[in-house]
């Protein structure tokens, strides 16, 4: 039965972005394959899909795992145009990656030509408490600044290694997207009933 449901559901395109080596692939693989991979290979681009029930509603997620390296930015605008929801990842042990978050969010606004868009900010690697250099409050502050004009923005701390909040971060992103679509923020806003919690 679930198979027929999944076929009828339109896939949601989620794009995972963030600077190099912060754990985008680890997060994505942990979510889609429930595994933590130890290899340290830079990604060029990978995509995964996964179906799951979120708030009793079927969702099919097409997740695009992207390259963190600046050199691949030529691809960036293209996939940003296709994405319906964004997961912006940084590592709490890497100050520079965190500094990139703001400009990446700005880039989403610009490519989408919108003030508000479903964006989830994930502070990854919180299992490495000893190396932590980005406080939770610092990240919260950044997200709150965005929340003033973009209500569909949120912050969650994750650990791809221990699978902490990994499902939550993707599920909440889908919830944000549903909220966004329900409010008619998107052009192709669904006429369907509101799927609020």
């Amino acid at each position, binding site marked *: 039965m679930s198979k027929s449901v999944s076929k009828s559901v339109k896939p949601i395109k989620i794009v995972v972005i963030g600077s190099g080596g912060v754990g985008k692939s680890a997060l994505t693989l942990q979510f889609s394959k429930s595994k933590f991979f130890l290899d340290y*290979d830079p990604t060029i681009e990978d995509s995964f899909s996964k179906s799951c029930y979120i708030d009793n509603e079927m969702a099919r997620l097409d997740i695009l795992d992207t390259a963190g390296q*600046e050199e691949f930015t*030529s691809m960036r605008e293209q996939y940003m145009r296709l994405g319906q929801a964004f997961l912006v990842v940084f590592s709490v042990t890497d100050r520079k990656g965190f*500094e990139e978050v703001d*400009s990446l969010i700005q880039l989403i606004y610009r490519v989408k030509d919108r003030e508000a868009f479903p964006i989830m900010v994930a502070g990854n690697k919180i299992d490495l408490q000893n190396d932590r250099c980005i406080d939770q409050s610092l990240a919260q502050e950044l997200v709150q600044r965005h929340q003033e004009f973009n209500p569909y923005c949120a912050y969650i701390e994750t650990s791809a290694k221990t699978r902490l909040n990994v499902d939550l971060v993707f599920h909440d992103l889908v919830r944000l997207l549903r909220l966004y679509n329900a409010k008619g923020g998107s052009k192709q806003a669904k006429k369907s009933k509101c799927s609020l919690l």
Partner: protein
Amino acid sequence: MPLVRLATPARPVRPTPLTNYSSARRRRSRSGGGGGGKAHCELQSSAVVQAPRPDEMQQPPLAQQTQRLKQLAAVMTRPATSPTSLRSFDLLRSLLPRQFVELCKVHLSFVIDVPADFLDDDDQDDDSATDRPTSQWIWQRARDSMKLKRVQNGRPEAAAATAAAVGDLAVVDHLLTRLASRSNLDQVEGIFRKCGSAARQRRLLDAVSSDNADGSKDVAESEAWTTHDLAGALKASLARLPEPLLTRRLLPYFQQVAQIGAPQPADCVNAVADDGLSAVLTARRLKALRLLVQLLPQDRRDLLGRLLALLARVADTTDSATRMTPDSLGTVFGPALLYPNLEPGARDLAAKLNSTLAFAIRNSDAVVQVPDSVAQDADGIFRRLRQCRLADLADEAAAPPMPSLSVRFAESAEFAAAAASSASSTSDADAAVELAVAEDFTRSQVAALYATVQAMPDSAKRRRLIRRFNRTNGGLPTAPTVAGTTACSSPSPSSTATAASPLISSPVFGRLFDFPMRCLSPETAGR
């Protein structure tokens, strides 16, 4: 279409990468010793092989094939070590650039697909040619500076300064030197992968380029840059070079190296032991890279060598403190070095190019060496020139003789010799036969090429190709034209080859691979 039948063995004019790969390999293996080549190529189907040697029917045992392939690979990968041949090689490059390019082209054509007009535009003024901005380049620059402007948000003048300043080899050079002197180079995790702070890198780039402009070293020293800053700035400066480090002319050929060892036609693979074949593929890749590196201008060649050595140092940490393998570094540096303008979505190609770069990093020392066979040929060219000069002095009145400087392909001869000495079943006579077969093969391929060109529908391209033939040979008689055309339309492969054979025995074809030396003055030639 009949002419296709003839063209199939070589597909000389505009082959697809795959066919051309296999045809290049056929050529390679043929000239590089018939024994190994026979084993993994379906030459029996080609029109060229007329009379199989008696022992061709029984295939040599697998182990022997593998051994032969490995010998061939060993010969191909041997670097030039003798000082005389290395000196000849350098002399040839500096004194006779045209002949140098020609020599490299011939050797390259054994390992990758090289078009007829390979590096043709370059006469003496190739510097101005390479620095001429193309429209694509202008667009790229415009996009870059716009990107910078956007990032810097309201500081457009700084952005413009950065964009103008970073396009400089000296900046790369400077950053490379500083990075190489870092002691913690092999300790930093994710070096070149994790990004440094963008603002600091911009400041660093600005500082370095302004330092280079006024010759001081103060500004760049004023701040304590982290290794990540330096690494990121180095990557950025490479990516933003107006002319890529590997030069726009050679980039396509560097990219072709990625196709070596690409999925092979199934009929070639099954018979041969894998390790022998892969050894040859590795050797081909290495030789192609070596030749291309030697074709780079001096400063870029040095810079590339230092960069690869640095990357190899980073990758070589046994305790894996950096956690960067050659493959990771290849992925990270691929866009900056090998494909600055790859269209988005070409992921598979990007991965292949990255692995080529990883290969270069793994062989960072070997890549900058001169292939032995090429150096020997360069030596041979100079020896011939010296003989010509002596002949000239003896006979002043006569018109300067045309030195026939055909490339001997040191590899094929040596491989045959090596095979003869080591393999017990192969005698000297056998090696000689193999050589003869190899030569025959070249000739008939040239004949086939000529016939195909002749059979092409009349077009600008055909005329251009014929002009090239003529230029290389000093004019073609019209009679072979007819012979070639009839050969094309004849249905049986055997008659094709026989029809073509009188044509190739003509002096015109005998000189086809000679170098166009007649434009040289004896003074230059004799030096």
